[in-house]
């Protein structure tokens, strides 16, 4: 007779094999490697929770130490490849195949290992895309996750950095998988239940709290006049004319400058309440002055940020918080929010080509995508209108019939024409193409496709690609704001000046901005200490950002 419950039986057998090492669901830290050897089978799909910020570091080390005769050739399906141990697994042969989304801190080593054939690569995804595949064809058999605390039944409190956990657990627990959680402490009652106990099979108390990286803190002291000028151009040349209210910001210094100019430059332009009111955004400290000045109505977050907990708790009108008062983040929901309910994404990148394609991948570094491609893409499934969306759609297709014309999300690439160490932002050909050739990938790892990009903003001006009618116009519009890079110096001056007459390119003077006014005194906060002061002492920056 055919059996239809093989997977459930296999899951029960795995749990039974691990139960000998547990009291109830509790496993001692020194027994974790033996637990993993009992529960995991060779070739399993395993999600080792490595988020953008929060890391299941104890479970990573335990997995690395397994006996290779019992556990090997795993297929890792995890959003972040962030800790050295994540890659050590492949060096040792514990894992073989990898599907992931983001590898920021390991970008150089993962590139070497991919070139060296140490890792069999499935694909590099966006967060939302990898989460989607958890429910279709990359469902984990075992999930190793991180939480702040657990009670004895196994209810978990994931706290401000909830991030990916609910999504990972949903896919694993409801498809006959095993969920193992590391927690910072065991408590009588958790502050709130983020993950119900019946989805959690084993709990390990870690000897020290899970590692969290402060990724979204930009020190205002490091913002340059060039970034301030670029931010002024973006506010006056993009936010204002479209009346952009719902948006996501990237994590670079240019967007931090925008956040710090809202209460000063933005206020003078009379834009308060008209722009930047609703965000899909991590709790950026740089947004504190705008929040305190009454600009921002609501923020939903992918994760949290180190030092922001007390501020968030005290500003629950702005942030999403649980019954315990602390932030509840959720990466999958926030990515969906940014994709479908955001009217603009604005962020920086490392390379932009002549069609507007952008990439953060260079031949020696593979940083992955994270969420930018979802934020920075026009959602073809969107059906609700907004002022900004309709106006952008009309600019792209002025002759179309209004009731039948799709709107457009604004996808804005912002940056200085030369980046770190004077490396040009604009290139004739993306390094991503060379990488795809070397690794024999079917698809070059492009962060944002050119046909989704609507504006490019640099210190030289704003290029509105929605108004370009041919590929040649598009190329010259990009060259026309590419400054003194090779790409910029090879512009067709006649065509660029005609594009400027049509308003496709707008220079600072066309927007009534004098570059000499781009001064640091315009920033609402000029240091981390200023941010602490704006927050009324609620923001507690990590020590590496303190210099007092």
């Amino acid at each position, binding site marked *: 007779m055919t059996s239809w419950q093989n997977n459930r039986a296999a899951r029960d057998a795995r749990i039974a094999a691990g139960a000998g090492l547990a009291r109830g669901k509790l496993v001692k830290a020194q027994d974790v490697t033996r637990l993993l050897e009992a529960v995991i089978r060779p070739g399993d799909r395993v999600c080792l929770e490595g988020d953008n910020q929060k890391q299941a570091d104890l479970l990573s080390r335990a997995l690395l130490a397994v006996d290779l005769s019992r556990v090997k050739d795993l297929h890792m399906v995890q959003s972040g490849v962030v800790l050295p141990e994540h890659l050590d697994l492949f060096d040792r042969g514990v894992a073989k195949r990898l599907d992931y989304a983001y590898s920021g801190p390991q970008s150089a080593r993962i590139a070497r290992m991919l070139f060296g054939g140490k890792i069999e690569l499935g694909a590099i995804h966006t967060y939302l895309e990898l989460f989607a595949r958890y429910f279709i064809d990359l469902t984990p058999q075992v999930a190793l996750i991180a939480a702040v605390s657990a009670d004895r039944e196994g209810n978990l409190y994931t706290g401000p950095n909830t991030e990916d956990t609910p999504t990972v657990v949903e896919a694993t627990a409801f498809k006959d998988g095993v969920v193992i959680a590391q927690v910072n402490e065991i408590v009588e009652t958790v502050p709130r239940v983020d993950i119900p106990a019946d989805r959690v099979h084993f709990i390990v108390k870690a000897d020290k709290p899970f590692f969290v990286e402060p990724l979204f803190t930009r020190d205002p002291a490091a913002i*340059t006049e060039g970034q301030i000028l670029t931010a002024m151009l973006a506010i006056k040349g993009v936010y204002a004319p479209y009346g952009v209210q719902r948006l996501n910001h990237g994590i670079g210094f240019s967007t931090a400058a925008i956040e710090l100019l809202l209460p000063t430059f933005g206020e003078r332009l009379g834009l308060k309440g008209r722009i930047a009111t609703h965000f899909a955004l991590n709790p950026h400290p740089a947004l504190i002055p705008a929040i305190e000045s009454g600009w921002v109505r609501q923020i939903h977050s992918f994760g949290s940020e180190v030092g922001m907990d007390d501020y968030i708790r005290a500003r629950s009108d702005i942030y999403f918080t649980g019954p315990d008062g602390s932030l509840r983040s959720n990466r999958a929901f926030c990515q969906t929010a940014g994709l479908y309910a955001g009217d603009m994404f604005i962020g920086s990148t490392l390379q932009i080509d002549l069609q507007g394609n952008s990439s953060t991948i260079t031949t020696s570094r593979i940083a992955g995508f994270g969420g930018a491609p979802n934020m920075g893409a026009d959602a073809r499934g969107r059906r609700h209108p907004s002022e900004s969306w309709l106006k952008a759609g009309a600019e792209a297709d002025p002759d179309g019939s209004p009731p039948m014309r799709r709107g457009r999300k604004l996808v804005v690439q912002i940056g200085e024409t030369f980046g770190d160490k004077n490396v040009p932002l604009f290139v004739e050909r993306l390094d991503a193409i060379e990488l795809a050739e070397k690794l024999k990938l079917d698809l070059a790892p492009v962060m944002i496709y050119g046909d989704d990009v609507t504006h490019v903003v640099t210190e030289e001006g704003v290029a509105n690609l929605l108004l370009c009618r041919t590929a040649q116009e598009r190329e010259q519009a990009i060259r026309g704001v590419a*400054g003194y890079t090779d790409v910029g110096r090879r512009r067709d001056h006649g065509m660029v000046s005609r594009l400027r007459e049509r308003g496709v390119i707008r220079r600072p003077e066309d927007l009534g901005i004098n*570059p000499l006014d781009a001064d640091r005194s315009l920033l609402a906060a000029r240091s981390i200490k200023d941010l602490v002061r704006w927050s009324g002492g609620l923001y507690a920056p990590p020590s590496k950002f303190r210099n007092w």
Partner: protein
Amino acid sequence: MEDISFRHPARARASGTKRSAIVGVVASGNLEVLVERVLPDAECAVDIKTAAIGFGEVWSAVIGDFVERYSPGGLRFSINDGGARPDTVSLRLAQAVRLI
């Protein structure tokens, strides 16, 4: 270090009355500009000491655009560059003209 010099004819004398002015700082990614009113009204000179080697063409383009736009006749600029980006150079030169 590399030394680069440019001499340009200028359309008109730079406005202002000061004899000299200084802006910026010598630091990585930044530059210091000393400007002095010491040349005939129809001339402009820019002398650069830079830490970044091999950017002669970019300097030429930046200085050419600057002279065209601000017509800094009568001024000599001495630049100590710590590998600043071209847009920072343009900004400091414009600040120097305003200051003098």
